[in-house]
């Protein structure tokens, strides 16, 4: 089967890039990974994503696709005969998966990020409370979507697993930074167990960044204000 020329512009630390890489792994697509240097943007990146100038960018036979969730859907559709389906097969289930993936980006991630950017204890406490509330929503979403199966998508990882699971490296880093458990085995047991399964998936494991390395990078990205 001819897959064409596939390149991915990204970075080892990016959640959004990881989504694309997991999807490519699921479809067993070989690709050239073009690592961006933190602090600069390559000419290829600026040319391929002139609107947002952000990673990831998938370049398939010289045609760029931008935005991680859109890239994942593209991978599923362009290589629909390869491997398993990433999106659910039923329109209603697809709508639910898309809804929660949008929630992860628009609500949950924003809250998680605000823990890292919080100034002072009050702000941090408020951010933590928000993350806990939103994680609780995701626990319910998992129970609803998985229907007793191991993943949001059922028997195998899929679109929503990828959307949320790619955050697990950073999730851990923020936990350490906040000195507060954010994925609680007793509060959100289904998500907790799902997280372990997700990280151990063979298409995910080699991509998950190592916590210490990521924490060090986080300190660069989110420097603490001088006392």
């Amino acid at each position, binding site marked *: 089967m001819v897959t064409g020329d596939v390149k991915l512009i990204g970075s080892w630390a990016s959640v959004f890039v990881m989504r694309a890489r997991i999807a490519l792994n699921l479809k067993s697509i070989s690709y050239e990974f073009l690592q961006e240097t933190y602090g600069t943007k390559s000419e290829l990146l600026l040319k391929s994503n002139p609107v947002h100038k952000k990673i990831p960018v998938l370049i398939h036979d010289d045609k760029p*696709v931008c935005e991680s969730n859109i890239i994942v859907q593209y991978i599923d*559709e362009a290589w629909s005969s390869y491997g398993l389906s990433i999106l659910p097969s039923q329109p209603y289930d697809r*709508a639910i998966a898309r809804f929660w993936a*949008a929630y992860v980006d628009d609500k949950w991630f924003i809250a998680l990020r605000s823990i890292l950017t919080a100034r002072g204890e009050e702000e941090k406490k408020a951010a933590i409370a928000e993350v806990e509330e939103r994680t609780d929503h995701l626990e319910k979403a998992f129970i609803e979507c998985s229907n007793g199966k191991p993943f949001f998508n059922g028997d195998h990882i899929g679109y929503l697993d990828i959307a949320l699971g790619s955050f697990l490296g950073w999730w851990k880093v923020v936990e350490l930074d906040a000195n507060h458990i954010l994925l609680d085995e007793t509060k959100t047991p289904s998500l907790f167990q799902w997280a372990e399964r997700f990280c151990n998936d063979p298409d995910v494991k080699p991509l998950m960044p190592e916590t210490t390395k990521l924490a060090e990078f986080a300190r660069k990205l989110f420097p603490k204000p001088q006392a």
Partner: protein
Amino acid sequence: MAKEVILLDFWPSMYGMRTRIALREKGVDFEYRDENLREKSPLLLQMNPVHKKIPVLIHNGKPVCESAIQVQYIDEVWPHKNPILPSDPYQRAQARFWVDFIDKKLCLGDQMYEAQRKVYATKGEEQETGKKEFIEILKTLESELGDKPYFGGDDFGYVDIGLIGFYTWFPGYEKFGNFSIEAECPKLIAWAKRCMQRESVAKSLPDPEKVVEFMAMLRKKFGVE
């Protein structure tokens, strides 16, 4: 006998307009219910407990939330008439990208209709900055449209549906922002008028005069009037 499809909506919502258009493109019979956003119905709160927002599409009792997701759902459930998304995966990715752009740039974040809100509901420097940002966004879209009749090419589709609702707010932006959108983006206005020729669009968009009145009311609420 309850209809198979119910749409919980709010008449000036450019998001609700997307779903109305999509349903009409497909010839789907639906019950339209206008919500009072200051007193949301129990059905709305039950069907969209996470965001408590309109539009909510209820199909055979099951809710679908978020307008862009609703339009894709409608396209997938009723695929045979007037396809909304292109069939080619790359074209689909492009279409999704541009609707995502509209959502990120024109109405980003949690604040109601952020970027375009600055144009009609702020004053002074904030408004001037808002206008500049807004025009830039429209110009990017106009550039993407190019000389094509519709964003996807010859056929009316996903991105057209994603953007056209904002057109009913244009007279209001112009009035309160004191500028001409047509002067800045003539091709976009030509595109909008073309879309208005379509029955599904004409039936789904409110009278812009009424939208101006609504925006005037919002300005009072934001303390600008």
